[in-house]
Every structure is written in C-alpha cells, then in structure tokens.
C-alpha cells in the first residue's frame, strides 16, 4: 500500500507565516500530523508540503509539481490536511484533492464545512467536517486514517450520512426498508394529509431565455445539434447513445449536407428519413439561403454535434457549457439548436 500525505508549511515544520511562500517539497515518510495517521494505523510513505501563499499565488505551477510527484508514487490513497479553519490551507487541500481525485486517486481531506476547500474539491474527494480549532487533531486523525485505509483497500464506502463526510453532490445506492411501491403509497398518503416529502430534490437548472437578437441581419449564427449528425463513416466514432463527447465539423464552403457526405448515428430514433437528407438534422441548406439573401449576418464556420440519447444529464450539461463557451468566444449571437 502506498500512502501520500499533503501538509502546508506550518504542519510540515517548514516555518510559520514567514514561510507561507515556501516552494513545494517532497519529504520521505510521515511528518507532523502524518505521525498521528501512522499511530492510527495508516503508514505514510511520502509527505508533500507547500506554503499556503505559494499555493494560492502560483496555483497552476504548484499543482503541476505536486501532481507529478503523486503520479510517480501512484498512491492507493492521498490524505490532505486536516486543514481545520484555515482558509488558505483548506483551499490548497481541496484543490489538490480535486485534481488527484479526478486522476483516479482516492482522496480524503478534512476541514470546516464553510472552508473554501470544500467547494474547491468539487465532489472529487471525501471531505470530513471539522471544527475550526487544531485542538480537534486528536479525534480527527484516527477518523480519517481509518477511512483512508478503507479507501486504499478498495472497500465499499457508505453514504455521506453513514460515514460522516460532506455530501459530494453524488447519489449512492442504499437499501430502503420497504419497496419503492410501499414508499410511494406511504408518501402519497402523507402528502394527502398535508405532509409533502420527497426522496429526490431536483437540482433544477432552469435557464431564463435571453432577450431576442436585436438585428438578425447583422448577427453571427451557429448550428448545434444532438441529432448525432456526423460525416459519413463516423470518422471520430461519436457513440450512438450515451455520448461521451461532442464534435465540431467545418462548414467553410459547404452549402448543403448531402446524403452522400453526412449521416446520423443516433440510436434514439429511426434515422432512415434523416439520412436521406441530413439537412433536416442540421438545416444548413436553408440557413445558407438566408445568408445569401442577407437575412442573417453570417454563419459560424463549424457546426457542433453530439448524440442526445441516454446521455447522463451531467455529461450533457458539460457539453452544453463547453459548446456555449466556444460560441461565446467566437462572437456567435444566435444558435439554431436542432433536437430529435
């Protein structure tokens, strides 16, 4: 088992506030609170440490160095902190936890629930809540050591409520005492009695429509679709369902999406008619006419495509944000979004 521990300058014994600009360092074995982890049964192989200001001021560079060390170690678990009420330290722990977690390293950290590190972790790590005072060290270390040990062994971890970590924005499966049917009847009768309860609180991402485009004849327009429209043969292998990516294809000099050049790989509808005329998926033919007539300013030089079927909502939301960012960057003011 390989265990890596992250500390700030103070807990690593590199100095106090005057050492807050300390470069990232790699130390062998357990240091400071790491010894407490060892006492609690978690042997620490490598300690990484960095000054809190150095982390905050040169985050990208510092993270790259810390992550390179972590990659060399390929740890079974990374422990960050605990940071308690220290905002800068908490932020460093949460940010490193996020990046390592996204690279597949199980990570556990601990800090106050209002620490900026909790948000920085973005649900990619287990964050245990602590009080603001370092005096809790004695109780916090054994708790995170035993949890980290289980993560390192690949053992199943329970829900936020069972384990005590802060909810990561994910949902895990647990057994209920009664069937879904019995619970549906129970909750319906409670609701009829005025007690409205739910097991799912939707996150609710409702987008207010923007104001109308003031002058379409001067607007830059783009075409975006979830119809799975791709060049014939699907050269970039867009999945037919559960898409894991979106793609962009050039429209420079293209006036119409011919049936010999484009097709739909969408698995959610019968594509026979669409494949006879892919312009019905991405209405390039009509938009080119409007462009020629001067009724729209210009057409963006690529179109964006993905397949919208069985795609997890989180993935779809991410595609949307990424495509919107590109459109925004390119000065696009209007989009025709074709859904299927």
């Amino acid at each position, binding site marked *: 088992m390989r265990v890596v521990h992250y500390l700030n300058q103070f807990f690593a014994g590199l100095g106090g506030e005057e050492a807050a600009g300390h470069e990232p360092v790699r130390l062998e074995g357990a240091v400071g609170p790491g010894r407490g982890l060892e006492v609690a049964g978690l042997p620490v192989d490598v300690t990484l440490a960095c000054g809190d200001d150095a982390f905050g001021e040169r985050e990208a560079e510092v993270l790259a160095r810390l992550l390179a060390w972590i990659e060399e170690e390929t740890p079974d678990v990374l422990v960050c902190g605990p940071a308690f009420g220290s905002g800068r330290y908490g932020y460093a722990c949460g940010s490193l936890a996020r990046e390592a977690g996204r690279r597949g390293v199980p990570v556990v950290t601990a800090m106050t629930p209002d620490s900026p590190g909790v948000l920085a972790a973005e649900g990619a790590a287990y964050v245990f809540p602590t009080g603001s005072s370092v005096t809790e060290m004695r109780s916090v270390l054994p708790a995170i050591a035993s949890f980290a040990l289980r993560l390192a062994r*690949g053992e*199943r*971890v329970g*829900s*936020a*409520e069972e384990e005590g970590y802060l*909810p*990561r*924005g*994910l*949902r*895990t*499966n*647990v*057994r*209920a*005492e*009664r*069937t*879904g*049917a*019995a*619970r*549906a*009847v129970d*909750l*319906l*009768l409670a*609701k*009829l009695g005025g007690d*409205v*309860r*739910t*097991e*799912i609180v*939707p*996150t*609710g991402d409702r987008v207010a429509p923007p104001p109308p485009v003031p002058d379409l004849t001067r607007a830059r327009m783009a075409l975006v679709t979830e119809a799975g429209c791709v060049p014939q043969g699907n050269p970039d292998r867009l*999945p*037919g*369902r559960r898409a894991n990516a979106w793609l962009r294809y050039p429209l420079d000099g293209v006036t119409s999406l011919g049936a010999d050049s484009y097709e739909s790989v969408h*698995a*959610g509808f019968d594509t026979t008619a669409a494949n006879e005329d892919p312009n019905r998926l991405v209405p390039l033919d009509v938009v080119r006419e409007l462009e020629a007539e001067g009724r729209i300013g210009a057409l963006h030089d690529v179109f964006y495509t993905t397949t919208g*079927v*069985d795609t*997890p*909502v*989180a*993935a*779809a*939301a991410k595609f949307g944000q990424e495509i919107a960012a590109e459109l925004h960057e390119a000065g696009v003011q209007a989009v025709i979004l074709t859904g299927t």
Partner: protein
Amino acid sequence: MPAEPLELATYEVTDVSMGSGVSFDAGRLVVDADTLRALAETEPAIDRAAVHVVRPGESVRVANVLDAVAPSVKPDDPETAFPGALGRLALAGRGRTNRLEGVTVLSSCDLVAADQLEAVDFPAAIVDMAGPGAERSPFGSTTSVVLECTVRDGADAADADRAIRRATLRIARELASATIGAEPERVEVLAHRDRPRDDGLPGVAAILQVGSEGPFLDTFLYGERMEGLVPTALDPCEVLDGALVNGAYEWAGSRNPTAFYQRSALIRELLDSDGERLRFAGLIVALGYLNTAAEKQRSAMLSARLAQMLGADGVVCTTFETGNSHTDTMLTVRACERLGIATSAILTETNGGLTDHVPEADCLISTGNEDELVPPWSPERVIGGAEGLESAPVPTWAYLGANSQTGDATWTAVPA
C-alpha cells in the same frame, strides 16, 4: 355482481434440483432440463435451447438476460395460463392460480450475436448469483431456472421475439403445472372491490406506465402489443395473473420483467391497504416512451381524466425505462395535479439527477442511482454468452430490475 376473486395458491420452493421428469413434492422442485429444452424448441424460431438452474451464492453470472417470469398455471384450465401471450384467451385474475414462490424463470439470449439487434440497442443485462453485484438484482438472491436460447439464423425479429417469450412462458407454466393436485402453502383470496367513495378514506389509483415500440421493446396485454393504447383501466388482479407480459429488453435495471407485473409490489400494497388506510380506486395502464409531444400530452391528460373518473384523490405513477419516458411521467404528474389529484412518482436517478422534472412533481420516490458502478467480478461460469464485463466495474443499470420503477425493489439513493 362483483367479479369472481383471484385465488392465489402459493407453493413455496425450498430446493431445486435437476432430474428426470418435472415434479414438485413438499417444496422440492425437480427440473428436467431435456423436457424443458424440448418444450422451448417447439417454437419454430428457436434453433437450440439449454436449461440451467442457478442458486444464490453460486459463482455464476446470467448474461444477456431478457425476462423473468414467476412460474404460474391455472390448475382448472392450464391452457389459459398467460392468456393470449401463451395460452387460450380467457379473463385473467379470476379463479385459482398456482404459483411457485422462491423460484423464477429467467430467459437469456444474445440478441446481438443472433444478428437481431445492434449492440448499441442491447446494453449489458445481467443477474449475478454471487460477488459484489449479487444484491443488486432482486433475482440474485433467489433460485432461477434459466432458459438459454439460440435463435434460428435469419429469423424475423418479430418471430424470434415471440418465440423466446412463448418458450419462457411455456417453461414457467410447465414448472407450475407440477403443483396441480398438491396442497398449497397458502391461498390468498384477492379481489378489487368497489368501495363507497364516501367512506372517509382517500381514493388512491395507480398509473402503471408500459412501453410498446416494436420487437424486443414491447409490452403485451392478453398477447397483443400495446402500441396505440389509450389509457385503460384494468382489474389489478388481471395484472397479478398474467394478463400483462413483458417483451421490452432495453435497460435492464429499469426494465419491468413479467414477474414484476405478476408479483407487483404496488398492486399488493394497494390491495393490502384497501379499506384500511385508503380506498384502492383502480389501476390504469398507460404508455410511456411516446414519440411526439402531442402523444405524450394526450396520454397524460387521458390518464389523469381516467383517474378522476375512478374517484382518485391521489395516484402513484410508475415509470417504464428511462430518459424519454421520464417526460411521460412528469407530464402525467402535471396533468393529475392540475385536476386536483395528488401524485407520487417512482423514478430512478442518474449521476446527473433526473432527465426531466416539473415543479408539480414534489413527491418522488428514488429507486437508486442507475449510474453507480459495482466493482468488477470474475464468475466461474457465465450463462447466456459473454458480456465482456469481467474486468471492468459494472453500472447498476445492467442488473435486471435493480432500479425497478414499478417499485418492486428496495434500492434508493442518498447523498454521497
């Protein structure tokens, strides 16, 4: 005159063994693989069949699983079991039915290898009898008789689909037929009675959502595809007694296998509660996975109207599969609430939450996060063809019935 009740005679199976001749005696079920195989092979579109028994704790994965059926027969007229879908047409839900408890018939066919479906349309569908995924499917903890089918080369999709379904029902009927003449463990008399609407109890109806989109994506009512169905009231006992048969084999976790209709936890809960804490106003079947906005709104509106005609103060809405059908559920919730009928709805979640939601849907039952991964497992034996899942974590949606949106499982999701 009130309808004749359903007399559900239950025969508990405590031991299943392979032997010569199908028989049942004092809880011991003997399965004759050759007899059952030959029964399955009477279906012209089935080339070869094999019959296996799988038990909890065995290192076995059943792959490419299609349906699950509770073995049942009408002892007074065996030819009317699963009327329309297998046997002669007769009203289900009346008279004696013999049902085996503790054993299920699972059907398995690699529809991709058989050139019946594209891989993209037939996602992994499994039941694990041991390992980290054993507890996911309700069928991982009870013994099953597995019918493994190979479809005749070049068989038409509708013929292959029908043949597999009939073979599965045939085996379910044959196993239960061994109980004819034996003493049941218990007999329940089940009936849906019209109660006075002014008895002070709230009227509660259920809207059971089903899908019917073509071969391998259908639900059958008395043997007929349900596509085009106008929301319809059924006798709940009909559904418990084989009037509804599944033929939809897309996402396994949120699939409604036939056994979930036969054992319906929702119908049983409503029958049990009838006259105690509610008045069971009735059961409505309605389509989900409808193609157009107009079709979806029409079905939602007519379901709500029918619930109102039944005198429902509240309805429980179930959901068929995921994605598209979640919009059907949400529109149904909205249509009911707008008529003043309170709703609860049963739905599975994903890593990204719900596919659709309306503000009126304020009472939702979670059947779990279908995207959660189960650690990899290498069983000693895989029945039904390879799924290629041995080295990778398996999403919960691959486990048959794990996220049952008819409410027939106990999984739910909580913050993590």
